[in-house]
C-alpha cells in the first residue's frame, strides 16, 4: 500500500470524499478562472456556474454603462422615461440592481425581453401610485423601450465629476443604444388604438414597427454568462 493511502486510512470515507471534493473544487475554480476550456467541457452548467468566481475585472472599462427604460404613453402617443427602480427595488442605485442585471445578461434574449415588457406594463397598471415610476399613476402604458447609456470615461488627468443618475433627457441620442421595444401591434392592442400609433417625436430614429438597425443594437457581451464583478 502506498504512503498516502496508508495515511488516509482512519480518516474515514467522508474525509476522503471531502478531500477529493475540495481538491476538485479548487482545481475547477482555478481552471475556470484562467480561462481553460476543461471545466466547461467536463461539467454540467450548474457546477460550472458555482466555479465562476475568480476572473474578476480582467478588462478595462471602455464606457460607463447604465441601462434605462421608457414607457409608451397611450394617450400622448410618446415615449417617456420610466424609473425601473420602482419594479426592481434591490440595490436600486448601482449596477447590481436586478434590472441592470436583466439587461446585462439577457438584453438580446427576446423571451426575456417580452417577459420584462409584460412585467413592467402589468406593474404600472397594478399600482404605480404605490411604486412611483415617474409616469402619471393613471396613465395607460402601452409598452416599454429599453436601452443602454454608454457614457464616455473621463479623460485621464481631466477634472472629474461624481457619478450621478441624471434624467434620460439630459443624455444625447448618441450615447443611447436601444435593445428592445414593444412591437407596434402590441402597443396598439394594449392602448386600444384602432389604427397604428403615429411615429413618436423625439425617438432616436426608431419609428414604431421598425426593428432597430444593427448599428443601434449593441452586441451581446462576449462573456454574457460570466460575472467579472464580485
Amino acid at each position: 500500500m502506498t504512503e498516502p493511502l496508508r495515511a488516509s486510512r482512519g480518516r474515514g470515507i467522508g474525509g476522503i470524499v471531502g478531500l477529493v471534493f475540495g481538491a476538485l473544487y479548487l482545481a475547477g475554480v482555478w481552471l475556470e478562472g484562467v480561462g481553460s476550456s476543461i471545466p466547461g467541457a467536463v461539467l454540467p452548467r450548474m457546477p460550472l456556474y458555482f466555479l465562476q468566481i475568480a476572473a474578476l475585472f480582467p478588462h478595462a472599462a471602455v464606457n460607463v454603462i447604465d441601462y434605462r427604460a421608457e414607457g409608451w404613453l397611450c394617450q400622448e402617443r410618446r415615449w417617456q422615461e420610466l424609473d425601473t427602480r420602482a419594479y426592481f427595488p434591490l440595490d436600486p442605485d448601482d449596477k447590481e440592481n436586478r434590472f441592470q442585471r436583466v439587461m446585462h445578461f439577457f438584453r438580446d434574449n427576446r423571451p426575456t425581453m417580452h417577459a420584462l415588457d409584460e412585467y413592467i406594463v402589468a406593474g404600472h397598471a397594478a399600482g404605480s401610485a404605490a411604486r412611483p415610476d415617474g409616469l402619471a399613476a393613471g396613465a395607460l402604458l402601452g409598452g416599454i423601450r429599453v436601452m443602454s447609456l454608454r457614457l464616455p470615461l473621463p479623460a485621464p488627468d481631466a477634472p472629474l465629476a461624481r457619478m450621478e443618475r441624471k434624467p434620460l433627457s439630459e443624455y444625447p441620442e448618441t450615447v443611447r443604444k436601444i435593445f428592445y421595444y414593444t412591437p407596434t401591434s402590441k402597443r396598439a392592442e394594449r392602448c386600444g388604438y384602432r389604427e397604428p400609433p403615429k411615429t413618436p417625436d423625439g425617438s432616436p430614429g426608431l419609428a414604431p414597427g421598425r426593428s432597430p438597425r444593427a448599428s443601434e443594437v449593441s452586441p451581446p457581451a462576449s462573456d454574457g454568462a460570466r460575472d467579472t464583478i464580485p
Partner: protein
Amino acid sequence: MSALSKLDEWLHEPLPVLRLELLRIAAPLAILGFMSGRLIHADEWVGDHGFHAPDLGGDYRQPLYIPPLPSTLAWALAMVMTLSALMCAAGFKARQSGLVFAATLAFVAVADRLAAFTVSKMSPVVMLAIALGPAGSRIGFDAWRERRLGGKRAKQLRALPSLRFLQLLPVVIYSASGVAKARGDWLKMPRVLWTQLHDTYQTAVSFALAAHLPGWSWTVMQALVLAFEIGAPLWFALPQTRRAAFVFAVGMHAMIGLMFGPVVWFALLMITLLVGGWGPPALFAPLEALAERLERRPRATEPS
C-alpha cells in the same frame, strides 16, 4: 517522504481550532450582510412578486431554471437563511445551522441569477467547509452547553482539513484572477484600475482618490495587484513572504471595500478568510484568552 505524504501531513497537521471558530463567527455575518439587501425584498428576489427570466430551456446564461416561489415561501426561506446564519455565528447547533445556511445559499444562488455574484457562488462552499469542521466546539452556545453537561474540554489543536481548504481558497482565487487579468487588459493598458472608478460602484473614497492621485499611481497599484495575485501561491507558501502577503491582501480588500460600494461584503468575506486562514497567531490571542476563561468556569457537575 513522497510529495503526497507531505501533502497528507500538511492537511492533517494540528491547527488551532480557534481559526475555524473565527471563520464560523465572521463568515456567516459577512455573507448575511451581503444578503441583507436581498432578504428585505425576499418576495421580489426569489418570490413571485419580482421579475424572473422565463424558462429559457437550457440557455447558457441560465444554469438551472427554478420557478419563483410563492411569496410566503420566499419569506420563509429568508427567515430560515437569516436564523441559520445567526445560529451558526452564535455557535448554536453550529454545524447543523451551518449546513442549513449553506443549503439556502446554494438555492438562492441558482434561483436568482440576477442577484447572484461571487459571494453568492462561493459562500455555500465556505459554509459547507466550516460546518464539516469542529465548528462551535470552543466558543459559542454549543461549547457552553457542552461544558454545562460536563463534557470533555475541547481540543485547542486538531487536524483541520476544512481549514486548509479555506486557507487555499483565497490563494487559488488570487492566482486565477491574476492569470485572467494578465490574459485580459492588465498587461496591455496602464490604467485598467482607473477605468473601473467611474461607474455606479463609485464611492466618495474612490471619487476622491481618482480625483487627487496622479495618473501614474494607478499604474503602480495595477502592477502591484497583478504581481501579488499571480504570485499568491508563492507569497503565501514561503514563510518569509507570508506576513507581507497577508498584509497586502487585507489592505487590498479594505481598499476594494471602500472604493466599490456594494463590493464591501465580498471584501469583508475575503478579509475573514484571510484572517482565519493566514492571520498571525498574535491576532488570536484575545480570542484564545476568552476561550480559556470560558473553559475554566465551573461546570454544572463540579462542586462549586
